């Protein structure tokens, strides 16, 4: 056991523990905050594993943007402050399938790697990763930019109630549109 192993163990325990709290807590907002702890511990794991750029991108995008978006969604859907009892479904199948997936993968990976050691490779700095991305992986990179654009347009189209509405009876459509406008104004 070296220092890196101990760090990986501690950060992994933090990540798994806060992950358990994310899927079991009764408070919606706390689930988002436990998700921050889990993602932060994973960023620490990436740093120990020598993936510097991935760790900082994780902090920037996940902890900075994705969790904030999730908390916005929690607020916009008028989540109650405090514990709510209707968050869960009866969960024997979920426990069975989730536990089966987790423990099955654990057995598979432990059997594959045992207690072997590897040397930590040279750190994945922005310079080295950028060289790889823009030399060997430039086509997937460009495809991803197109995907981000289409996701942006898709989110806008989904959020606007007046795009893609089926032509119906005019009075009906007008009533529905009024209703949506009033409702969206109320939810802001």
């Amino acid at each position, binding site marked *: 056991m070296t220092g890196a192993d101990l760090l*990986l163990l501690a950060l992994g325990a933090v990540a798994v523990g806060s992950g358990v709290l994310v*899927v079991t807590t009764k408070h919606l907002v706390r689930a988002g905050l436990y998700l921050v702890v889990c993602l932060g511990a994973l960023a620490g794991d*990436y740093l120990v594993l020598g993936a510097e750029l991935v760790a900082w991108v994780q902090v920037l995008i996940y902890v900075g943007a994705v969790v904030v978006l999730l908390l916005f969604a929690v607020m916009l*859907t008028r989540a109650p402050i405090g514990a709510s009892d209707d968050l869960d479904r009866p969960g024997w199948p979920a*426990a069975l399938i*989730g536990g089966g997936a*987790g423990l099955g993968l654990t057995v598979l990976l432990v059997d594959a790697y*045992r207690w072997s050691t590897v040397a930590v490779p040279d750190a994945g700095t922005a310079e080295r990763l950028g060289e790889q991305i823009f030399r060997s992986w430039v086509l997937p990179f460009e495809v991803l930019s197109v*995907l981000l654009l289409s996701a942006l347009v898709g989110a806008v189209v989904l959020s606007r109630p007046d795009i893609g509405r089926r032509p119906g009876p005019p009075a*009906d459509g007008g009533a529905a549109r009024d209703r949506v406008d009033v409702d969206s104004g109320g939810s802001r």
Partner: protein
Amino acid sequence: MRPVIPYVTAALLFGLGVYGVLRRRNAVLVLMAVELMLNAINLILVTADTTVRAVLPHSGQVFALFVIVLAAAEIGVGLAIVLQLYRLRASVAVDEVPLTEPTDPPSAAGAPEPAAAGGNQEAGR
């Protein structure tokens, strides 16, 4: 460094994500569980970058970056869908979403009713 430790962490996180997706009723919590699964995949990729000697160096980390971008796109579209669902039904419970489309327009006729129900719910809380 022993790669089995991050691998086991990732496997357990993936199992937790599967459990959360199947267990939770609130759509926002389902999205959080999906984030847990995506992060487990990222941890697998970054760890595999240290154990697998590939032809191209650091390909695992490049893939982890790609998965992070995919997750950002997924969360944007997913939250747009969730907010639209809330606007239509005043509820984000995933097991109350009707899988069959109503034939006649009771959705338009009964449309003010979910908002009223939401108001009642709000008042009840």
